[in-house]
């Protein structure tokens, strides 16, 4: 009883602290974006880049919110409930489907939406197409992360009397977390780089979309400030990749496996 009360108190405290940090950080981030945009505008460089940047963040947030929970549930279902040949075939299907060219997915989106240009430009349509593209990739990554947890950890948990869901929540998921986080960062990379599917979806080069399509538009028009945006995009992707390939502490192995479920 006391332990539960303590845990609830900690959870409430952490939630309030997170909300406070978000309230402080988000306006600062928006102010930074506005300041950089105003500075660039005064130099005549990349007009409208602030709107593009916010669109990109919006699309990124939507895709992450849609993709990660769904892919986690599907990969947990595959881990728990699917065995044998069906599992192998599903894994191969996920790997194969994640290699379908982005232009085909953009074509399907374009065909489904028809001539409605408002839908073509809508952030929700873009997010839906990117989610469909990202789901098989993310499911394959999470499945690999869950299966990378050594079998002996599960056996030890079962021998100590743990139930299946306890072992899943307290042993498998924490051990698989570095792989899942790495998959999430790779997903962020894919979303930020994706231009082909969005151009095929929109059926035209429109202004003020996401960073990758805006860079394509500037380069297509022969604008010199395309180089600035290309450099910024390149630096962002290299920074994200640097964090993706970091050796996470939990990969130290057995010393980090905690049997604290009782």
């Amino acid at each position: 009883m006391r332990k539960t009360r303590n845990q609830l108190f900690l959870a409430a405290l952490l939630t309030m602290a997170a909300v406070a940090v978000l309230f402080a950080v988000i306006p600062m981030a928006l102010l930074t974006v506005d300041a950089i945009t105003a500075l660039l505008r005064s130099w005549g460089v990349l007009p409208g880049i602030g709107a593009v940047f916010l669109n990109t963040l919006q699309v990124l947030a939507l895709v992450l919110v849609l993709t990660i929970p769904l892919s986690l549930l599907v990969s947990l279902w595959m881990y728990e409930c699917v065995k044998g040949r069906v599992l192998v075939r599903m894994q191969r299907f996920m790997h194969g489907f994640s290699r379908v060219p982005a232009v085909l997915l953009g074509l399907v989106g374009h065909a489904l939406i028809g001539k409605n240009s408002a839908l073509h430009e809508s952030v929700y349509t873009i997010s839906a197409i990117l989610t469909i593209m990202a789901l098989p990739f993310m499911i394959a990554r999470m499945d690999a992360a869950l299966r990378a947890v050594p079998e002996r950890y599960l056996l030890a948990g079962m021998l100590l009397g743990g139930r299946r869901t306890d072992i899943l929540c307290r042993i498998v998921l924490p051990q698989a977390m570095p792989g899942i986080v790495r998959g999430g960062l790779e997903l962020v990379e894919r979303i930020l780089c994706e231009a082909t599917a969005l151009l095929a979806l929109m059926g035209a080069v429109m202004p003020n979309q996401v960073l990758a399509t805006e860079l394509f538009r500037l380069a297509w028009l022969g604008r010199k400030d395309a180089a600035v945006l290309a450099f910024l995009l390149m630096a962002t992707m290299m920074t994200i990749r640097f964090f993706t390939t970091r050796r996470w502490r939990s990969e130290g192995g057995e010393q980090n496996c905690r049997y604290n479920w009782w």
Partner: protein
Amino acid sequence: MKKQMRSLMRAGIWVGGAVGILLLAGGISLVLGVLLTGSTWAGTSPGVVWSLVRQGMRTLGFSVTTSVAAVALCFPLAWSLSVVLCYLVPRGRAGWLRKAINCLSAVPAVVFGTMSLSYIVPHIESAWWAVVATLILMSLMRQTRALTRVHDRYYALVETADTLGAYFCETVCQVVLPQAKKNYLAVALRMLTRCACEGVAILLVLSAYGAGADTLPTALMKALGVTGESGSVLWTQVLAVLLLLLVLVCNALISACMQEGRHNEKNA
């Protein structure tokens, strides 16, 4: 309470899995339905379809030849860099080089397209060579990264051969190459698929040349009206089918090359 939470979790996992699989299956059925609906094919003569297919095959030929040439030219460079990084540079010092290669392989394709448009296209007259050069630029670091992962598996073999007195070239050619040849093929085929399906970067490069030179993805994007002109729905469908066939063939070849091939299904 705990028992109910556990049941809820298991139910949630089942529901989530079922919803995800249904969404994917429904999406695939919709894709096939959109591609194969009869309304756009009604009243079309076989001659028109055949001429579109022939035009599509020419575009497919341009895609495949440029991709094969790019992979063939890029592979030796990436292989050499990867061998030097894995087996020649001391492990402690190779760390920052590996990080640099990892970071460079994250650069988006649209940035490579912009770089090619500015720095490569002005010096090359032929559209074919410009596309090959762009694909090489795009694939070099990615191939190096993939080959580094392959070569890391055989580090112990190289050390053992070195200890037994073999020269470095003997070690690489007679120990590593026979073990890794299937993996090399898988890496090359993955790069080939990636090059054949690249759209944005090649579209930027081909914008500097006249009409006629197109890869499958760029022809598809032009048919959808990305560059202002648009093609017929029939032409779009022919291109989509050809691109899908190309990807399926490449995926089948990759599956056949990789160690987790069909024969392992019986052991699953």
